[in-house]
């Protein structure tokens, strides 16, 4: 079935790939979704019919070539089809983050001038209706789930299945025109437009051509030997480039099956049921899962726990080597097999990783312990480094060369160079066309020769050729004495402790570094429960003296390890506070992908930062918070400022 696919004059657009799959893999599963407790599935042939019906329906509603069609909702086959159908009719699909608030949504819809919006359910419909006043080009809204929408005015509101029905009815009228539009698509036509969440400023619309999408999908699929029989679980935001490339690009190229969970809450159960062979998750997800395993083992019977500890120790010793195909003694191998039977196998099954052949993590640095834990179980977890502007892939780790501290070697077709200030530049077939309606930013990011600035500082390791990323280029600063300030580097080291969820390190232009810390409520809460420590809220737990002591010991441990690296030893954390609230995307402190927004935090908590540097022992503060339903409130707290031990280093000028 999965015979090698050759490119020469192959399909030049995503719709063309769909047509190819509908003939070549007609009866193989293309999409699955769990609904009403059962996995529903569609073959490639059925998928083609569904997409075509929607495309015809869209033409019937008047979608023109060059229009923008926004797609908002959780991962569902219908919404993936919506994107493909949009491209079929010559329009540009624009997936949006479903948890974006009305304001963010209004900006994006207005910026691209979407005439059509296709959404999942009432919640999204309400949001779009709320902002439609300000959108001049917006015309039609199509929704998937009719629940709660019956009473709405349906003059410009349409049910997805009705649009498809009308499309099927108008088959004869539009099919010729549709075929003409599909035939017109080529490598240079736009495949998708994705808005970057943007750590600063307004989101930018990254235009990706079919060339970007298909070339990247092709080379990355070959890099990891993806097959037509693979299964992937699509659960990450559809607006994120990674999901588009995995669930649309690679899925279309290799013809594997995209599985959509029933809802965000059932994701772990669904993961176990599907048992994907190709899996991507940000470090946070792996971290949470590991934390859950550890919590459950704490509660297990002593016998089970001892068995677990024994075999996990053995797995850590030999597991990664076995996975990398390095020589391992016969006895160790046998013991590993026994462990597979008793512990690793059942554990992988519980986690849903039994069948994972290729697993990736990216986006943030992953803790070495976490990374090694999964690899020692025999899960081929690897790291990659990518960006929306690169259509994901810049570097990735080949099988057998996997380490937690690098992001791998350049992907096929990618060139790398490092600028004098340490910033990483790349050039590849995946390099984006432009930022939509933003020539200035395009020029800032991509030079005439096609080199794109990543905004990250890093270096290529001698010998192995692996890329190592230190931090965001703009965040790498200088301390008052001129030594290097790399906050992310320190933050990541701290975040590797399960008790710590989020860290923000300050120190640019100052004499010493300080930090804000968020504890991990699950891990610390569980610890508190086991030790009979009562707490009513996050805030109360966060200021418990024993919690503070634990965090302090973590900080001091990190200081020791930071001090070992001469270049970065100035980044040791001298003083810290445990924040009274969790940093939250709803309050604008994190991006939607949960990256720290430094400037906003510096501004919002300036009083606490002052306290960190003026030697005070505690600080009283009041902070505004936004509740889930959008209401605002404020919390008051008095925070204890702690001093942490640092390893003395001979002060010297940076670098030289």
């Amino acid at each position, binding site marked *: 079935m999965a015979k090698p696919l050759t490119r020469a004059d192959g399909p030049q657009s995503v719709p063309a790939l769909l047509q190819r799959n509908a003939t070549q893999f007609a009866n193989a599963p293309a999409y699955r979704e769990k609904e009403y*407790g059962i996995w529903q599935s569609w073959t490639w042939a059925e998928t083609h019919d569904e997409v075509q019906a929607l495309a015809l329906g869209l033409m019937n509603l008047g979608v023109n070539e060059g229009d923008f069609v926004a797609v908002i909702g959780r991962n569902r086959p219908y919404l993936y089809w919506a994107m493909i159908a949009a491209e079929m009719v010559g329009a540009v699909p624009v997936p949006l983050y479903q948890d974006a608030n009305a304001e963010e949504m209004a900006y994006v819809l207005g910026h691209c001038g979407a005439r059509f919006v296709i959404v999942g359910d009432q919640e999204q419909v309400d949001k779009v209706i709320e902002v439609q006043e300000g959108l001049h080009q917006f015309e039609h809204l199509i929704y998937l789930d009719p629940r*709660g929408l019956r009473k709405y005015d349906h003059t410009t509101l349409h049910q997805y299945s009705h649009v498809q029905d009308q499309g099927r009815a108008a088959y004869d009228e539009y099919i010729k025109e549709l075929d003409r539009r599909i035939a017109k698509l080529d490598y240079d036509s736009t495949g998708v437009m994705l808005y970057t969440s943007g750590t600063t400023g307004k989101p930018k619309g990254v235009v990706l051509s079919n060339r970007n999408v298909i070339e990247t999908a092709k080379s990355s699929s070959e890099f990891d030997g993806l097959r037509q029989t693979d299964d992937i679980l699509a659960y990450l935001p559809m607006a994120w480039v990674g999901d588009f490339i995995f669930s649309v690009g690679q899925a279309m190229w290799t013809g594997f099956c995209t599985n959509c969970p029933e809802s965000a809450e*059932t994701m772990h159960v669904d993961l176990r049921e599907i048992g994907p062979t190709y899996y991507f998750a940000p470090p946070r997800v792996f971290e949470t899962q590991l934390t859950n395993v550890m919590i459950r083992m704490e509660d297990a019977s002593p016998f089970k726990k001892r068995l677990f500890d024994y075999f996990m120790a053995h797995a850590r010793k030999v597991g990664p080597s076995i996975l990398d195909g390095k020589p391992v003694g016969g006895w160790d191998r046998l013991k590993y097999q026994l462990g597979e039977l008793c512990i690793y196998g059942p554990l992988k099954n519980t986690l849903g990783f039994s069948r994972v052949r290729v697993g990736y993590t990216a986006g943030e640095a992953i803790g070495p312990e976490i990374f090694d834990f999964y690899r020692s179980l025999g899960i081929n977890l690897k790291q990659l480094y990518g960006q929306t502007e690169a259509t994901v892939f810049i570097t990735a780790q080949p099988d057998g060369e996997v380490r937690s501290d690098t992001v791998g070697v350049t992907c096929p077709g990618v060139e790398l160079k490092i600028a004098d200030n340490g910033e990483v530049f790349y050039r590849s077939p995946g390099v984006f066309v432009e930022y939509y309606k933003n020539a200035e930013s395009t020029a800032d990011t991509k030079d005439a020769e096609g080199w794109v600035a990543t905004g990250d500082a890093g270096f290529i390791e001698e010998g192995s050729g692996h890329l190592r990323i230190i931090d965001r280029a703009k965040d790498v600063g200088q301390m008052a004495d001129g030594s290097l300030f790399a906050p992310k580097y320190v933050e990541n080291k701290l975040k590797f402790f399960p008790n710590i969820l989020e860290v923000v390190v300050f120190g640019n232009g100052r004499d010493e570094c300080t930090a804000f810390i968020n504890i991990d409520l699950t891990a610390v809460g569980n610890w508190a429960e086991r030790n009979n420590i009562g707490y009513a809220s996050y805030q109360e737990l966060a200021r418990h003296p024993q919690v503070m002591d634990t965090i302090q010991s973590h900080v001091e441990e990190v200081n020791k390890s930071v001090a070992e690296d001469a270049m970065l030893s100035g980044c040791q954390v001298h003083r810290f506070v445990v924040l009274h609230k969790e940093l939250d995307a709803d309050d604008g402190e994190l991006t939607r992908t949960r990256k720290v927004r430094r400037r906003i935090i510096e501004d919002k908590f300036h009083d606490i930062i002052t306290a960190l540097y003026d030697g005070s022992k505690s600080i009283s503060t009041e902070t505004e918070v936004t509740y889930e339903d959008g209401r605002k409130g404020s919390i008051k707290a008095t925070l204890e400022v702690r001093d942490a031990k640092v390893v003395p280093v001979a002060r010297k000028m940076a670098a030289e």
Partner: protein
Amino acid sequence: MNATAESYTTEDGRTIGPVVMEMKNITLRFGGVEAIKDISFDIREGEIRAIIGPNGAGKSSMLNVISGFYVPQEGEVWYKGSRRPSMRPYQVAEQGIARTFQNIALFEGMSVLDNVMTGRLTHMNTGLFAQSFWKGKAEQEEIANREVAEKIIDFLEIQAIRKTPVSRLSYGLKKRVELARALAAEPSILLLDEPMAGMNVEEKEDMSRFILDVNDEFGTTIALIEHDMGVVMDLSDRVVVMDYGKKIGDGTPDDVRNNQDVIDAYLGVAHD
């Protein structure tokens, strides 16, 4: 008020059907105490009907009369055009009247799905012998029932806890599961006994949305009891107000809000 047999359309465009249930001069005594004193009101098809009143006003007793848990000493219950004889609760349930309880009565030892499936009991027809000898039909019925249960699970967004034993759920979720079980019976009247009791603001909002959605999506007639006026006024089409076992008001939320007796009852004017 409109004639009892006619339908009418509300301001927000919903169609309210004819009267489906009528309570006529109900009096309920416990020993010498009169919990309900000569109360009459009706419930129309497709509406959300609230019974409100301060604690101890006799609201719960009223709901228990409707659901057959209490038998009133005087008065008549008319249901779908005919007088209902004295009935046991399970017979009332078989007639298509489902209910929830203020203190939650779930099958704690079963999973959520099992609880919802148990709500389908009145729709299971194949008897004991048919089930043992006529496997095909029983299986078909089981599948059909499971489908209804799953649609409701999906509707109330409790898919993630489908297989979880009920005893492990939070209070708010239990309330939702109880609603799911009542809905599984596809009732013609759904009785909710203080659906928002003991919930925080967010859970209350969720529950209100579900109640409205149920009414909207399935057209289910809902009668509910609440002592929290605010929630009820936004939710219901018509409201009966009770105080000390007596009916002191009946009408749209606006009517009731301006009713002097109601205002007095809620502001705690002394009774003489």
